[in-house]
């Protein structure tokens, strides 16, 4: 089972790129991922001599990086391309189907990220992880601002997986800005009376979070009124946050939500490393092989459930039950999985079903031989 298979790290051999590689090593070691290190050279056209000279220089630098990564036991593939950096990076990211692009923020002179990182954030459909100037040591506290949009749900899902894998603390925040703008308040007041604004929002927040499997994760939930970008930056500066994961809806999204603009403002300030999500996940479940045996499928399902892939786990358990409707452990795990995503009603049904089957089997056991019982229970639960 692989969660992050490939990480693309574009480098321009600057200090900031080195930081990105450091961060990528941490992630790659955790997830046993392969690093694709990419350098994009300018196209000098007819100037062959300079191009060749540059290629020589780049080759040496890439060799150094490859050696560094090899010494850390990280699988690496060095890629050298010619063209416009951010376009090539996007192209390669899609061509190689990477999980995430990890890029150094670039020129610290301007304070914010370099042009390549910023363009990538705006245009790449793959998640872009911009590594800030802060020292990379580990991922202890993750902040995930949400606005109930699909993109932010995606960010939250990935944040949960990352937090689970790194054992980090997860801060989920929602910034409600409807109290600030009179116009927005007017719109909002059509649905909510101003007195229980706060209450309604906090209900909505809680209800929304119930859909996520937060088992075994240290979670802090924050509901703040204010301007999203300012509050996010504030929070990051006052609390020690290592990583921000946020969705970016882009220009077309609902204007009140955490739009591309919010992500952009946060990225410009770059208070910590940040991952921006659009339509693809960092964590993409990739299973080692296709399983056909029902017991193996059940084992895989359990493993998935432990790692927080609740929906995928449910698919596996359902498959097991289609094959053998009397497979009680699968019913029980199916119930567990539903509890974790807050579907109590179905969970109850499945639990009852499991109990019923177990009782039936108990009765059968008296008369049937040990062998059969062994096949159903054998070592699985």
């Amino acid at each position, binding site marked *: 089972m692989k969660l992050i298979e490939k990480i693309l790290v574009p480098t*321009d051999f600057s200090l900031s790129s080195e930081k990105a590689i450091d961060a990528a090593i941490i992630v790659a070691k955790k997830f046993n991922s392969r690093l694709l290190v990419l350098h994009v050279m*300018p196209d*000098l056209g*007819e100037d*062959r*001599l*300079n191009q060749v*000279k540059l290629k*020589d*220089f780049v080759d040496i630098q890439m060799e150094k990086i490859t050696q560094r990564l090899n010494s850390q036991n990280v699988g690496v593939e060095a890629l050298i391309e010619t063209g416009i950096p951010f376009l090539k990076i996007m192209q390669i990211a899609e061509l190689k189907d990477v999980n995430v692009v990890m890029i150094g923020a670039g020129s610290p002179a301007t304070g914010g990220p370099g042009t390549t990182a910023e363009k990538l954030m705006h245009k790449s459909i793959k998640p872009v992880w911009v590594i800030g100037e802060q020292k990379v040591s580990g991922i202890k506290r993750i902040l995930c601002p949400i606005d109930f949009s699909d993109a932010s749900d995606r960010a939250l899902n990935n944040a949960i997986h990352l937090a689970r894998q790194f054992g980090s603390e997860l801060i989920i925040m929602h910034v409600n800005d409807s109290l600030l703008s009179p116009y927005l308040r007017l719109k909002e007041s059509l649905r909510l009376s101003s007195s229980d604004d706060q209450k309604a929002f906090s209900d909505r927040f809680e209800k929304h979070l119930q859909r996520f499997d937060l088992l075994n994760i240290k979670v802090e939930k924050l509901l703040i009124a204010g301007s999203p970008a300012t509050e996010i930056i504030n929070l990051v500066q006052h609390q020690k946050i290592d990583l921000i994961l946020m969705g970016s809806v882009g220009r077309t999204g609902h204007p009140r939500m955490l739009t591309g603009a919010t992500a952009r403002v946060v990225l410009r300030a770059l208070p910590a490393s940040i991952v921006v999500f659009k339509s693809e996940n960092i964590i993409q479940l990739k299973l080692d092989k296709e399983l056909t045996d029902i017991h193996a499928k059940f084992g895989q399902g359990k493993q998935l459930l432990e790692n927080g892939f609740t929906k995928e786990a449910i698919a596996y358990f359902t498959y097991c039950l289609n094959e053998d409707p009397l497979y009680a452990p699968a019913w029980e795990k199916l119930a567990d999985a539903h509890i974790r995503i807050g579907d109590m009603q179905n969970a109850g049904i499945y639990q009852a079903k499991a109990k019923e089957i177990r009782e039936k089997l108990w009765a059968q056991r008296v008369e049937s031989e040990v062998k059969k019982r062994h096949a159903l229970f054998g070592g699985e639960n």
Partner: protein
Amino acid sequence: MYRFNRLLVAIDFTAKDHTLISYSRQIAELADSSRIYFVHIAGNLEIPDEIRDKYPAVTEPLDEYAVKKMKTLAADIFDGRPKPELLFEVGEGETVSNLLRQIKIKDIDLVLVGKSGGHDADTAVAEKLARKAPCSVLIIPEGAHPFYKKVVLATDFSNHSLDALDVTGAFTHSAGLDSFTCLHVYNVPTGYYKTGKSYEQFAGIMEKNATDQFMAQMRLVDLKNVNPHLELILDKYPEEKIISYVAEHHSDFLVMGTRGRAGGAGILLGSVTEQVIRKTTIPLLAVKKKGTGLDLLQALLEN
């Protein structure tokens, strides 16, 4: 092969260089050449601002780098043998005119130049050199292998072709081959019917003529133990026939004289060779008697 004493290899730092250098070694061995000049002409020896900004670590002057790079490229292939002497030169400016100047100054006998697949800038350099250089030019298309078994001489039995025949003979002899193909494409002149003969009859006459000319030329040169065999093709478009012939027979080396029948009459000469240079996929040796660079043409060029 006494002619090819000093070689010049035009290096352009593309994938073609390796083949070019391999060829230069082979030819130097066959011709017992004394010197090989490796020349790269750069448009500009300044490091562009783009690179200065993006790669501050890159500071080595370009000309030094170019010489170093050519040395490593050549060392890979020449492997430290004492002969021929290898010399390296970097120039700045327009490629063809600079190469021509170097050829003149260094008294070069043979220029080796690469050519890539399409009809682009490289092909243009190869073409222009073949047209203007006062010495023979070997044009090597991308990806050719420096091994040859089947040598073809495309001839029109002119004086220039006689030169080419002489060179081909010496060339095949030193390469240890005992034969090569002498390809002649002939045509029946449009006015043949005025002689009262049929097309076939006239073609027969032309064919006999060609054979006679071939025999006459054979008497004029000393081919040692090499026996060329004559191949005659009746067609209107010699350049196409030459190209298709070498492709069909998997020939791997083509020799041509650079100026056709019309002799020293001007710029538009050797058009068949030029066409073949443009289209060839195998190495082509355009043989030119040294020093026959057109004075008129040079005068035109230098102004």
